[in-house]
């Protein structure tokens, strides 16, 4: 009864670890499914979604409107899986996309650069030099992405509950340690936690609906009271309000919906 996110760099063995945990605990292992679902649900080519969630923002550390929207779509799709519980997600940025859910076990799996270079050389049939530069570039992109969106460095260990270095510890060791952690009390889906899950799901759904037409919109839900913050003048807020009410009319479990004008969007908003 848990949700595990595994954050990893390329060729860091994270995928194998994730798959083995899922097998061992009988959980569902997801990664690309999320993108496929988002792509299908919102009619966006998968490649665009991949770019939005992988590539660093272009200029001035800002995401474009469409990138923001795509991230909202991916998050919505991910939350749909997570709501069913018992999942291991090893796609990108899981620990950040699910920030609003308290009982997620956030794991980072890392490996030595030399091991990773070797793995990449073998798979892609490229020189060591090339492999190394590709990996470093990839890591840098991730770093920038996370920083622009969440102001955090993916290598900051305080973002995770557990960081496992697969080198001296084998993949099997890692699987055992993580599986052991996952069944502990804080990661069980209790009743209050269910409420937070539902709230987060609603917030993500509304945000995904709004993200198509508006950027700089933040959504939060608590016990079915949805609060939307929109940056801009009163006229803009009015438009957001109209759209939000339209979307909310088709959603279930909403108690109240308010749309406020705000100078800046609080970090705990979706």
């Amino acid at each position: 009864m848990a949700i595990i996110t595994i954050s990893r760099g390329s060729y860091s063995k994270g995928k194998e670890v994730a798959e083995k945990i899922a097998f061992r605990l009988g959980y569902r292992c997801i990664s690309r499914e999320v993108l496929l679902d988002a792509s299908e649900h919102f009619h966006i080519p998968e490649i665009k979604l991949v770019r939005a969630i992988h590539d660093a923002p272009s200029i001035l550390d800002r995401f474009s409107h469409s990138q923001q929207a795509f991230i909202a779509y991916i998050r919505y799709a991910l939350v749909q899986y997570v709501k069913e519980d018992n999942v291991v997600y090893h796609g990108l940025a899981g620990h950040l996309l699910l920030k609003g859910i308290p009982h997620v076990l956030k794991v980072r799996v890392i490996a030595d650069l030399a091991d990773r270079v070797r793995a990449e050389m073998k798979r892609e049939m490229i020189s060591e030099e090339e492999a190394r530069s590709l990996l470093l570039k990839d890591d840098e992109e991730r770093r920038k992405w996370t920083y622009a969106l969440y102001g955090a460095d993916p290598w900051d260990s305080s973002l995770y509950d557990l960081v496992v270095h697969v080198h001296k510890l084998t993949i099997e060791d890692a699987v055992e340690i993580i599986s052991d952690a996952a069944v502990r009390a804080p990661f069980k889906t209790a009743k209050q936690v269910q409420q937070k899950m539902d709230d987060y799901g609603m917030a993500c759904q509304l945000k995904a609906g709004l993200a198509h037409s508006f950027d700089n919109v933040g959504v939060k839900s608590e016990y079915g009271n949805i609060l939307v913050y929109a940056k801009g003048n009163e006229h803009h807020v009015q438009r957001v309000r109209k759209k939000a009410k339209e979307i909310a009319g088709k959603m279930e479990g909403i108690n109240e919906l308010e749309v406020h004008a705000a100078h800046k969007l609080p970090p705990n908003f979706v």
Partner: protein
Amino acid sequence: MQPLTTQMILVMVMIGIAIFLFIVEWIRVDVVAILMMVALPLLHLVTPKEAFSGMSSNAVISIIAVIIIGAGLDKTGLINRLVGPILRIAGTSKSRVVIAISVTVAGISSFMQNIGAAALFLPAIQRISKTTKIPLSQLLMPIGFSAILGGTITLVGCSPLILLNDLLEPFGLKPFHLFDVTPIGLALVASGLACFILLGRFILPQGSAESDEEESQDFLKNTLIEMGESYEIQTPVNYTDYREPVLVDDLKRRYLVNVLAMTEPPDFKVLSPTGDQEVRSDVHLLVYGRKKDIQRMVEVEEMRLKEAPDIFKGETEEGASGTVEAVVAPRSSLIGKTLREINLQDRFRVTPLAIYRGEEAYRAEIGDVPLSVGDAILIHGEWKRLQVLQHERSLLFTTPIDVELLRPEKAIFAGFWLAVALSMVLIFNIQLSVSLMTGALGMVVTRVLSIDEAYQSVDWRTIFLLAGLIPLGIATEKTGTAAWIAHAILCAIGDVQPIVLLTVIGVLSTIFTLVISNVGATVLLVPLVVNMAIAAHVDPRMAALVVGLATSNSFMLPTHQVNALYMGPGRYRSVDFMKAGLVISIVFIVVMIGMIKLIYGV
């Protein structure tokens, strides 16, 4: 024609700076006025004595006295008591509601500050709108415009008219009497109202919240209709045993329920508890919220809802505490700040419950909403605490604060002193400032209001705006700048009919008052038009009167304080003011010129 001197150029530069600052509003208008008061003597354009002569002018003294008299009338609840009967007369027909309230507001506005009269009726109008389902936007604009028009009924109705006699003095012209303008003012109010009654459907915004969309879910409906109520609830004995700590703020966020008071073992009562206080087991809470929210909370949190207040019976009684609506006034220091920054809870021990902006009701996380002009904040607290808040004067209290704080027994004195002041002006022909100050003093002596209350009621921004701009008028006249510009304009347009000249002056004043404040427009234009009138052989008093009246012709943009106040609640856009304002402004000028011709035979 006189040659253009350096001093004239300097005065024109100063006028230019003043107008520029009025428009861009980098600094507040009253500060611009003080800047003029200081800069003009430094440039040797006026003597130091003249620079501060505005402070001792009849206009300034009159306005102080008018404000004190208005505050006195307000204190006795004399005006508040009008609201009930007026509403009964008004019934539910839209035209009757508009006429009844507009006429009353115009009447009050004729001897009180326009904004005060407009603010007084705001909550009542909101109530009527809700009960009769007449959209607020159909009511507020006619009533707001009437408040402005009502200012032209007497010579003390608005700042430009109060100022007029002072500006005429240097020319040795006969001053106006208190009621000289009354026929014109009444005609203006009547024509304004007639416009709204006859053309209302063309010039008023027609949008109605009810007809917008018909949805089934609760939160989509117009939330304003459903106000909250206070309830008393009790937490179970084992409340904290099996759940995470619940804070006062949690209840607010999760259920939109405000905790007004809470018991604290053994037998303490905490009023307006702060958000970080924990809700313990087996305590009694006084909460405020909508019935459905309260029920939801009681159900989920397994609390017990009591039939009627029991522990907090004393606190909920009429005389002890209550809920008021306070509007963020134009030029208030609170504009742009959030309730969290203002910190009402800690400073005044009152609880803000909701913010109403236009048709939207904000209940969730209202601490983070940046306030803007016209926002109505619903506040609960003990009356005495609310009174302290009211004294701070950054919020306009639209709900009359408890009867106990009013002094209805003094109503007769208040009425008496108003009558004394008026009869001194009318019968004994004593100067306006002296008569009004006598009335104000009378109210203080008979304890309608204390002298400190009288001092506090004076709005120093208005006083300094008036006093600071008067030397600019003096400089314009003394240096011959006014005469020079007047001649230049007359040379350019050639000989004109008196009626045409007055109309041009009316239009000019209207434009000026929209861009710079009405006081600024009056001070700048009166010396100019008097010179023009003398040169064109038109009665200069009439020219000045046109300026005094037409500076109230401020309808096309929401720059007038009353319009700014009503813009939010009425959910008007600037274009709404332009549409209705254009019609009213044209009618205003036509009626004004017509009445002046009729009465004074220009």
